């Protein structure tokens, strides 16, 4: 019997927000990797991808704010409202609330996305000032490693958020944070694959293929653990069979099939895919399919709890 009632979120908006923020985090993660361990061509691709995380985070922030019942009070997440007299200090921090931690993480990560954006401008000759400083920041390995930690934390945040609830499926496992960050990284490599393909960066494409394979394998292990965990608890029903909001089909076909199995099979077997008229080759096709799978993952996991509710408790 469900004891928790439906929170009435605008689910399409939340799905999109989680997808967009996760993609921003994943792309930033790839940019950091390219700057830490890549060569000149990798950094070229990374610089082009630098245009993505900032605007994506702006879109995510808008979606998050619009979905609030009181959007104009969103600053109450950061600054303690004078009316909340029980809370000490000017900054709002409830350490037991993942949403509070997440707000700060997203805020910091959002600020950090300015660096690759400026670097992308510099790379395309559109940055009128501070080019040297931007280059030093964007290519600083330690700095990018620290920044990528915030990117990965942003990718994991929504997963931890849904884990820390009493909603069916979400709260039945500890794996949500791991799954969300793995699918963020998958999205990042998928976007990098498309960029590498369009820029005809063959060396980068090689690294992206390896990265996609490894990341898909990690996501696959986590999904297997999730399903095993839920089956053991007897709560796998929504993910296995729920047709509410097409949870089961989007999970198995989208998240498992498109995001995990497709890249493993295609890249692993070295299959040649080419959409000739569009001049798009294997890696870009895999990237686009994986992105669709990542979106399906966000949709199915978000709706799994609601599919399990089936009414008020």
């Amino acid at each position: 019997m469900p004891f928790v009632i439906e929170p009435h979120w605008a689910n399409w908006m939340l799905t999109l927000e989680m997808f967009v923020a996760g993609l921003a985090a994943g792309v930033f993660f790839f940019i950091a990797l390219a700057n830490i361990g890549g060569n000149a061509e990798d950094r070229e691709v990374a610089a082009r991808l630098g245009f993505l995380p900032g605007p994506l985070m702006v879109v995510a922030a808008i979606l998050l704010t619009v979905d609030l019942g009181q959007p104009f009070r969103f600053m109450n997440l950061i600054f303690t409202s004078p009316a909340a007299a029980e809370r000490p200090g000017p900054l709002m921090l409830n350490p037991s609330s993942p949403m509070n931690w997440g707000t700060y993480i997203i805020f910091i990560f959002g600020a950090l996305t300015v660096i690759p954006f400026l670097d992308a401008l510099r790379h395309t000759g559109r940055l009128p000032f501070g080019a040297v400083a931007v280059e030093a920041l964007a290519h600083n390995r330690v700095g990018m490693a620290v920044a990528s930690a915030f990117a990965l934390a942003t990718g994991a945040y929504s997963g931890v958020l849904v884990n820390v609830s009493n909603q069916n499926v979400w709260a039945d496992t500890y794996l949500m944070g791991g799954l969300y960050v793995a699918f963020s990284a998958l999205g990042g490599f998928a976007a990098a694959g498309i960029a590498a393909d369009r820029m005809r960066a063959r060396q980068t494409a090689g690294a992206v293929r390896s990265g996609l394979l490894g990341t898909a394998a990690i996501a696959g292990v986590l999904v297997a653990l999730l399903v095993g965990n839920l089956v053991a608890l007897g709560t796998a029903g929504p993910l296995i069979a729920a047709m509410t909001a097409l949870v089961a089909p989007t999970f198995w076909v989208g998240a498992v099939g498109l995001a995990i199995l497709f890249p493993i099979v295609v890249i692993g077997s070295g299959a040649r895919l080419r959409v000739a008229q569009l001049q798009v080759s294997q890696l870009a096709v895999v990237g686009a399919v994986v992105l669709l799978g990542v979106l399906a993952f966000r949709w199915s996991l978000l709706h799994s709890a609601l599919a399990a509710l089936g009414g008020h408790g």
Partner: protein
Amino acid sequence: MTANAKGMFVDTTLCTGCKACQVACKQWNELPMDDEAAVREHRAFTANSYDNTGHLSATNWRHVKFVEQFSEDRSDARWLMMSDSCKHCEQAGCLEVCPTGALYRTQFGSVDIHQDVCIGCRYCVGACPFGVIDYNKRTGRVNKCILCQDRLEEGMGTACSKSCPTSSLTYGRVDDLKTMAAARVRELHAQGKTDAYIYGWDLGNRGAITQGPNKGQAVADMEVVGGLNVFYLLLDKPDVYGLPAAPQLPQRNMAPSAGVALISAAVLGVTGLAAFRRRRMEQAAAQAS
């Protein structure tokens, strides 16, 4: 527990299902109907015994539940009724996850909401293990029973308990209420009603169900989520009344989930760097050959 905490003892054996408490709650708190048109057009019938609201919601802070139990041949029956509301948990899931400080612990130990602070994020809705707190689409904020905070500040009891004609709802100091509840369970056990036990605090009572589908099963007092300031005397398993058998705080998942995320992120980082390293080594090998 908050010193001198105030709360309510809900003795379901005394509830007649009159719903005076529901009406008093609606009236004192000026809560509107959920769907006026549905009532006018006779569409509001729940078809569930005499239940007229179905569940707690943003505009129904109190709900009288009706549980009808019949034997297989319908020769034996019993009717369980329970006036439900927010439990004002000692460890409140809603309060724990609130990211703005809108939910807070009052001087009476109850959990209230600063309506002018709530941003309508609805995180508390999914965090409450009892399905109590609800989102109000009209105001964009959340609502639930606030234990008549305004009345308590004036030294008055809760509106629902004042209106209860059978003393099924009793307002008072939680410590006093626990003493009262223990005595009431002992009294019922002495009468042969060994079904009686307390949901919310462990006062040491043990018994067995004497009627209904769960007849013969053992029952015992249950302390849940650190104790409930609004607690219940029940005659059957908690899930019969729509109460969770083992409610938990959402925070139980926080450290393990963050830990799994951290390990996953570390593995992803190493995998990502390894992808670039592998490519570099392949290039080096190709150049060497």
